[in-house]
């Protein structure tokens, strides 16, 4: 879900310190400072944090494109190309397709070394940025690309009312210094720059949003739904869903390989099926044993494991809210624990009983 920052109340997006802007080329750009709170023990930005960043930048772009309609994130795919270490991580989103009922967005994510690099980009040097709408200009900048993401947003008709992202009432801090001479209502609502500022985390982000782990080996973790982690429609923010799925998979796969610290998340594929409104939202993990171990062919490489993570709303009759597949890589050849393969068809059967709305 694209986010409306939580008015004046403290919100985890503020503590992440997301800020960004719209540029003249049609892109939306968002960035965060990398710090120990949003990194793993290896000093790499968490996949869930990257997913949050791209969800925000995609949502802000979608909000502007669709105004006065609103939208909900239907799916999000994140591929981590190499570890993100900062010092600044920047996501640049562009529209792939705008349809009547959906909007498809892709985003590239970069490690940015310094402010000057970003300013050079932001000033609108078309030859220095890529812009997916003009592929011939891609990748001419020097920053290091760390991830790629795509998202589909479902369009929610406003019925004539303004969407909840209206910057005048949402608590988004916007800068409208360039409004002079512009007549577009969209331009007025969506200032060229925006920020979500808070005091920051003094604990790891997973602790900060309130994720608790009850069964590491089983990948059972949960998070409460409250104002701090809600989105604009009062449900658990999609980025927190990603953090929860990441934590659950990391714990389960880590327990299986016996070296949790060496488990790296490489892919997140998230399908948002229903809003998580009540909570707690709880994860359940099914590990998927890869074939990279002990086979003559080295495809996939040793240590490539995947996990299916279901996120259920315990307070809403255990409703299935989100299905996530998580790709991981570990630097050990240790075998996975007994995989859940045999139960997966049964698992789908169980989803059958809970998933249709």
């Amino acid at each position, binding site marked *: 879900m694209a986010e409306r920052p939580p008015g004046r109340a403290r919100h985890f997006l503020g503590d992440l310190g997301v800020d960004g802007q719209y540029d003249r080329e049609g892109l939306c750009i968002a960035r965060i400072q990398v710090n120990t709170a949003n990194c793993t023990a290896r000093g790499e930005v968490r996949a869930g944090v990257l997913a949050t960043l791209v969800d925000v930048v995609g949502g802000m772009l979608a909000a502007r494109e669709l105004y006065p309609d609103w939208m909900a994130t*239907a*799916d999000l*795919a994140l*591929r981590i*190309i*190499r570890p993100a270490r900062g010092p600044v991580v920047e996501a640049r989103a562009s529209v*792939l*397709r705008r349809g009547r*009922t*959906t909007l*498809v967005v*892709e985003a590239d994510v970069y490690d940015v070394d310094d402010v000057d690099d970003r300013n050079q980009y932001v000033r609108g040097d078309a030859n220095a940025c890529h812009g*997916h709408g003009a*592929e011939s200009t*891609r*990748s001419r900048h020097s920053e290091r*690309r760390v991830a*790629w993401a*795509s998202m*589909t947003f*479902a369009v929610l008709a406003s019925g004539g009312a303004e969407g909840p992202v209206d910057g005048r009432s949402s608590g988004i801090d916007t800068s409208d210094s360039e409004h002079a001479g512009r007549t577009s209502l969209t331009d007025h609502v969506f200032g060229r720059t925006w920020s979500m500022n808070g005091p920051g985390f003094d604990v790891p982000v997973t602790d900060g949003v309130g994720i608790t782990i009850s069964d590491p080996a089983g990948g059972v973790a949960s998070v409460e739904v409250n104002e701090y982690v809600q989105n604009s429609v009062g449900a658990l923010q999609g980025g927190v869903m990603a953090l929860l799925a990441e934590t659950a998979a990391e714990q389960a796969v880590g327990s299986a390989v016996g070296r949790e610290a060496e488990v790296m998340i490489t*892919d997140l*594929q998230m*399908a948002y*099926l*229903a809003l998580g409104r009540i909570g707690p939202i709880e994860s359940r993990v099914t590990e*998927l*044993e*890869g*074939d990279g171990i002990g*086979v003559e*062919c*080295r*495809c*996939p*490489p040793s240590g*490539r494991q*995947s996990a*299916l993570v279901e996120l259920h709303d315990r307070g809403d009759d255990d409703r*299935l809210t989100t*299905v996530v*597949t998580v*790709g991981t890589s570990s630097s050990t050849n240790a075998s996975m624990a007994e*995989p859940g*393969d*045999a139960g*997966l*068809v049964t698992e*789908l*059967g169980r*989803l*059958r009983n809970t*998933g*249709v*709305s």
Partner: protein
Amino acid sequence: MTTSTPQTQRTETGRHLPFSSVRVSDYFRLERWELPASNDVDEPVQLFGRMPVESHQCSQAGGMTTGGLLSGVDSIGGMTAGLSVLPRWIVTTNMMATIVRLSNVGPLRLHSIVLRRGRRSVVVAVEVVDEGDHDATVALVTMTCAVLDAVRRDLHFERPIGIDMPPPDPHPVVPEVFFGIEPGSGPVTRLVITDHLRNPWGILHGGALALLADVAARRAAVADRKGSEARWARPACGDTVIHYLQPSRVGPIEARCEVLGGQGDRLAVRVGMHELGLGDRLVGVASVQVLAC
């Protein structure tokens, strides 16, 4: 429900192939059957499929190519979604595939189930297991379909669905030939649309774009890693995300790849697919993980 126009197509070896009755799902010899519905009207549609793993359709990793696998997934998942919204029908808008195993024994069994049925979209999960390897999970795919506005009064199905596995082709051809993918190398790969690749509405089958993304990404990876380790000479594709942005009717489709980067045995490749005959419009975008073998 699928129709095709009789025609022949010349292969690279000059042999004429009778593609008149060979549809995309038939090429992969996809058997399909539906779990009989109970009296519960809210019970979601469930479909199963089975496809053999044949050597001419395998990657260097020893299993069905990911593009071929996703072609079968699109057939099964799309039918599942469509049956769940009758008398309307659907189009696939995206697939997110986690490929767990690239080496398969076969046959592969596909199980498709509706996760969410909304007014405007249907989300389907498809699990693929290897019957020849103790039902080990091969892939898990989540696909989203948009519900079409128009009611399809010409759609009639005998329920539960049951479609036998087509017989083996005595003169099998590789997927690149069947799908009209031009020979080549490097970051740009073309597919020529012929009638047997269309669905009943004249639109290019989603499996064809999946196969194109697979072939194009591998060629791009080979070009990118030229001169490096030998195992990059014939890589295979793993996790894949495809967004179907516009229907393709004219072609040719040109896949333009960008190697985004990677580490060790894997590369991430972005594939932008453009329809040259319709103003170069972007019809699909894929992100493909390419793995050294």
